[in-house]
């Protein structure tokens, strides 16, 4: 069959009718296919004269309810026939999200870690003072300022490393996991950024290759560095007497920026400690100054008299 024959046939009126019917049939088949895809969930109807197995919640007959107050002071509704007790949740005050006020306390502390470690032979570190503000007894913005120095000749080493008394600063925040508990005890995790600018020297260096039997000596004097580091802290605080508390922290720290020097890297960084250590500690004696002693729940408590006044109004 040629193309001309095909065109002649398709233009014939009988064939047009045939095509229309064919299209109609296709639509009907497509519609049938769609309806065949519809899912039907079979439901087994219970047999007549039997009770369904699933138990429905019992309905409480409100006419038989008596209003009472339980030991916690909550209003409860008691069904006098069945003895069922139901708490009247409409009358219950919603539990506060944070029971301590926004501006709760200010705590100031002295870090005694380095003085204690110096007593055990450490050759560096002095100490710092810090302060933190308690927000809802949950969040604690933190700021510390301190000074450190170093004068260390490690065992079997060929040098003396010195850093004069140099300042450092730390800023960060902590989170108290026991935020709705007694504020005398805190379990905290924190994040801090430390910054320091300092000088360092390596003195009395003796270099001996061991072959030439001709040792040489030198010193690297007054190099200046600036360092920044990040600290992740985990620790706790315990009240020991009146407003005085003690606190421990384990600190994981990491240097994030450091001035490069052609004479090497300083082994001690104020506020950070020795370069090689990833973990250090903190032990603080602190004093807490309450700002707002009232709990949020106490502030929000509505007395009966007030309620009645509101109702009358």
């Amino acid at each position, binding site marked *: 069959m040629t193309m001309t024959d095909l065109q002649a046939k398709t233009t014939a009126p009988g064939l047009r009718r045939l095509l229309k019917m064919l299209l109609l049939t296709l639509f009907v088949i497509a519609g049938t296919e769609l309806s065949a895809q519809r899912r039907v969930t079979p439901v087994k109807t219970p047999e007549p004269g039997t009770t369904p197995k699933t138990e429905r919640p019992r309905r409480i007959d409100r006419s038989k309810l008596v209003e009472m107050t339980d030991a916690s002071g909550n209003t409860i509704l008691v069904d006098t026939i069945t003895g069922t007790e139901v708490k009247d949740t409409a009358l219950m005050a919603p539990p506060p999200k944070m029971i301590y006020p926004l501006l709760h306390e200010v705590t100031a502390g002295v870090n005694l870690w380095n003085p204690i470690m110096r007593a055990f032979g450490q050759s560096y570190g002095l100490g710092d003072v810090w302060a933190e503000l308690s927000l809802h007894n949950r969040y604690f913005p933190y700021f510390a300022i301190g000074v450190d120095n170093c004068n260390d000749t490690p065992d079997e080493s060929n040098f003396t490393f010195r850093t004069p008394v140099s300042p450092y600063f730390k800023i960060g925040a902590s989170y108290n996991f026991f935020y709705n508990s007694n504020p005398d005890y805190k379990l905290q995790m924190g994040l801090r950024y430390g910054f320091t600018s300092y000088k360092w020297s390596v003195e009395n260096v003796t270099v001996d290759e061991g072959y030439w*039997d001709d040792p040489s000596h*030198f010193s690297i004097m007054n190099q200046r560095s600036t360092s920044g580091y990040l600290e992740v802290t985990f620790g706790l605080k315990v009240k020991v007497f009146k407003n005085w508390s003690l606190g*421990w922290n384990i600190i994981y720290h990491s240097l994030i920026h450091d001035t490069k020097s052609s004479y*090497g890297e300083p*082994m001690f960084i104020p506020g950070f400690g020795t370069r*090689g250590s*990833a973990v250090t*500690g903190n032990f603080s004696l602190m004093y807490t100054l309450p700002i707002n002693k009232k709990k949020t729940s106490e502030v929000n408590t509505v007395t009966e008299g007030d309620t009645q006044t509101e109702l009358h109004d």
Partner: protein
Amino acid sequence: MKSLVYISGLLAAGALLTQSCSNVGCTENQNSLPLAGFYAMSTGQAIVPDSITIGGVGAPSDTLLLTLDSRQQQLYLPFRSTSPSTSFYIHYCQKALDYPELNDTLSFDYDAVPYFASEDCGAMYHYRVTRYTYTTHLIDSVGMTDSLITNIDRETIRIFFRTADPDNPDDND
């Protein structure tokens, strides 16, 4: 309260433990020591030369760095920190070569830069080699992979010898 006391004790013990375990020690050399490797010029392969001795020119008591008994593919050639240059000699002990005139000499000129590596590795010099020369009795050539000698334990000097081909032993320079 009791649990807090336990946690406190645990934290204190942990902190003291971490203080005592913080040092990892020096994983590199405690001095900047140039490491030289020996190679055959014909094949470019690393070799272990036999019947040679190596020492520093002017070393106390003519102490050797490589003796006849010790056969090595690599050898440290320590620079003299009090001097701006250091020379080493290679003496060949084979019968036909056992003459001081046939010794090869290798000399390095350098700048010594004071450097503090770390608490564990200590302070040392880094050497910046500015020039090196050598004689070519049995040495074919000498190459340096880096002109800066640090305490990192890596080969920076390559000494290529003219060696006899095992298949043609007579083919010796």
